């Protein structure tokens, strides 16, 4: 498991060098030009819906642990404010999740994408805020 986490740490560290590196890689690896760099507007399928909900589960798992530790006074009293603030993101996300499920079930791609993008933005902000508050968010690696 440590080796896996190390690999993911390397992958994460590469997050800021997309673009030029991919174009160079395309040439070096004899891949068709643009295969790694062109944007594709993927449909919001049940699979994509599942992925974003799984993403939220990963974050909420960390938040629940943080909340429990706060309740047990393992963490400093300031954690109460953190929990209250972080709960706000989840309250905002919850109705959007319900909407996304409905839109995907009805294959309403336009509204599904709008809601999907909102959820991605909320989860990204939530994760950033949570990490800054000292919440540990584990990656689910099997």
């Amino acid at each position, binding site marked *: 498991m440590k080796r896996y986490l190390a690999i993911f740490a390397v*992958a994460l560290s590469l997050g800021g060098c997309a673009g030029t590196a991919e174009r160079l890689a395309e040439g070096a690896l004899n891949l068709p030009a643009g295969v790694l760099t062109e944007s594709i507007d993927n449909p919001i399928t049940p699979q*994509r819906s599942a992925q974003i909900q799984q*993403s939220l589960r990963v974050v909420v798992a960390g938040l629940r642990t943080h909340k429990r530790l706060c309740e047990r006074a393992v963490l400093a009293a300031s954690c109460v404010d953190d929990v209250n603030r972080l709960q706000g993101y989840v309250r905002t996300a919850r109705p959007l999740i319900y909407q996304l499920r409905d839109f995907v079930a009805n294959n309403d791609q336009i509204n599904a994408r709008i809601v999907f993008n909102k959820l991605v933005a909320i989860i990204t902000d939530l994760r950033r805020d949570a990490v800054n508050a000292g919440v540990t968010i584990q990656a689910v690696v099997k």
Partner: protein
Amino acid sequence: MDILAFTNLALNGASLLASLIEKGSDLVGPTNSTWVKGLNVIKTAIEAGRDIAPIATALFGTFSPGKTDITSQELAELEALLDAEIDDYLTPMKPRSD
């Protein structure tokens, strides 16, 4: 990398990475430029929502695909779990013991 892309990497790329690690070859290691370049390529593909199988095969000559589809029952189970976990998280905090 945002949380969605990270989770996609963790879930969909894990089997590929695991198979590469288990090969025990000199590909493994952050100082190996081929390995790093390959990881970066795959990461980009995952972030863009592409199928990584053909790219991974082109890069490393092997790919063990993870689960890429989900049944309606599995989706329903996932949604039920998420709902329960969110409900639990949003319950008011218990009084601290200090």
